[in-house]
């Protein structure tokens, strides 16, 4: 069966510090991968998605970036965090053209102070 891992679970970082969140998927190959952010009481905002290694599409211009160095690894980064980057970050995968449903990881709660 497939599983998706995210770490860390929680993170408190000062403004201006760098960020690296990691997501890995097991039990599948060539998944579509997604990064979302969820602000309190709001819907999920799609940040990036990837259909293959090295292929990243950005939905919202901001100080975040994403990379996919391996088939089942997706990384979200920032060089300098802003207060507005605080939120609940979720990684998800879907099986490409076979199905549209997305499977989410446990999330990372980021607080920028």
């Amino acid at each position, binding site marked *: 069966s497939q599983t998706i891992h995210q770490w860390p679970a929680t993170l408190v970082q000062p403004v201006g510090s760098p960020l690296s969140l990691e997501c890995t998927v097991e039990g599948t190959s060539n998944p*579509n991968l*997604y990064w*979302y952010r969820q602000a309190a*009481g*709001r*819907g*999920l*905002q*799609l940040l990036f*998605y990837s*259909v293959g290694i090295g292929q990243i*599409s950005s*939905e919202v211009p901001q100080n975040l970036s994403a990379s996919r160095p391996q088939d089942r690894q997706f990384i979200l980064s920032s060089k300098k965090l802003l207060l507005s980057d605080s939120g609940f970050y*979720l990684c*998800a995968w*879907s099986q*490409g*053209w076979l199905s*549209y*449903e*997305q*499977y*989410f*990881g*446990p*999330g990372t*709660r980021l607080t920028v102070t």
Partner: protein
Amino acid sequence: SQKIEQNSEALNIQEGKTATLTCNYTNYSPAYLQWYRQDPGRGPVFLLLIRENEKEKRKERLKVTFDTTLKQSLFHITASQPADSATYLCALGFTGGFKTIFGAGTRLFVKA
């Protein structure tokens, strides 16, 4: 402008009753619509997907309808239980399959 709206207020119902949640959208033409359940502090869990050419979909106690003329989906939970208490998110999907637009969700409380 483009919008996807779900009941912003929480829905409180008595155990055993049917819960009905609404998802309305404006200026989108989705190819399919999905419903997810999210518990506090956790990632959403996929429940049901309905395509634009389908009127209704069922899975156990869950039923989803999709009216592309009204631009609305209704999500029903029959014989609701306290364990159904959660936030329910609707999400629009489009041809190509990658970009998904999520609503803010509706909190459901089922009282025993």
